[in-house]
């Protein structure tokens, strides 16, 4: 009987703690009722991508007179925040929508980040003259298409202390497109997402 009491107590305490935990649920990204966070989350990135794309599409810069698509490469997008964040999350939204619009083709042969380059482009060329491969199916020289434009940018985090001691966090999303032949900047957009929170709330 004496042994049974501690076991019951452990079970009871475990049950109480189990009840305190938040159950895991899936989130509908289109209708997320979850509270806002001080850090940068997917809602901020989607909003930034939306604003950038809206500006780019509305500018008419993508409308090539001959109806052909421009070829774009992904340059460096610098993460200048205090958070670990892969900027490909942002550029992936951008390039996906640009390709879906039919006005841009994105090259995998050339990119600032190795993650945006497909090593197979060079690998398939390394088998030229290899008798194991039907040479008629190997990519011939002079077939790669050079990019006409490059997209690059920066994400900046700035923290400002409010007069009442709270913290204001400013996220600046900046994207630019360069016309590679001339080096001229072709389009640019900055989008600000400001947040306010308690001074002790970390953003990482």
């Amino acid at each position, binding site marked *: 009987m004496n042994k049974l009491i501690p076991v019951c107590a452990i079970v009871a305490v475990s049950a109480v703690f189990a009840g305190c935990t938040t159950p895991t649920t899936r989130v509908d990204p*289109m209708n997320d009722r979850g509270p806002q966070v001080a850090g940068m989350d997917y809602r901020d990135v989607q909003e930034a991508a939306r604003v950038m794309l809206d500006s780019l599409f509305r500018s008419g810069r993508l409308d090539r007179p001959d109806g052909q698509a421009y070829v774009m490469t992904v340059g460096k997008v610098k993460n200048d925040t205090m958070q670990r964040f892969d900027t490909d999350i942002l550029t992936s939204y951008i390039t996906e929508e640009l390709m879906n619009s039919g006005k841009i083709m994105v090259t995998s042969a050339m990119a600032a980040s190795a993650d945006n380059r497909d090593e197979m482009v060079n690998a398939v060329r390394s088998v030229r003259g290899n008798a194991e491969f039907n040479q008629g199916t190997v990519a011939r020289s002079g077939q790669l298409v050079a990019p006409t434009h490059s997209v690059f940018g920066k994400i900046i985090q700035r923290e400002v202390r409010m007069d009442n001691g709270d913290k204001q966090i400013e996220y600046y999303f900046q994207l630019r497109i360069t016309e590679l032949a001339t080096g001229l900047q072709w389009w640019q957009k900055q989008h600000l997402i400001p947040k306010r929170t308690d001074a002790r709330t970390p953003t990482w």
Partner: protein
Amino acid sequence: MKCFKTVACMIAFAAAAVGCVSYHTPPQDRRVTVSPELGTRVWVTDVRLAKANSQQYTLQANVVNNTSGVVRMEYRVVWLDANGMELPSVLSTWHPISAVEREIVGLAATAPTPEAVDFRFYLQAARPGLLN
């Protein structure tokens, strides 16, 4: 004669009632959906779809705050092709806006592709904590 007076009174009353109702009816557009929790606090007016600098359509609309306070909202635009099929895009995510008392806020949204020729505009109250 008595019957004539009654009919005349009814017509006059009906005319007055119709006039009152139609004057306060918000503009209706089948492409626009305002969520019930916003009620008549906001109206969506001057909904226009046009091509400006781009080959892609741009939607422009005004959101009118009928109240004497700040209204915090979100809107999204779903784009449809010529067959009425939805074109999924990150451009169709919710976007926060707020309007101060009696303010008319102009909104614009550009279609993700030249194939988008129609739209559905949704407006709802901002989710808790979205805007201060």
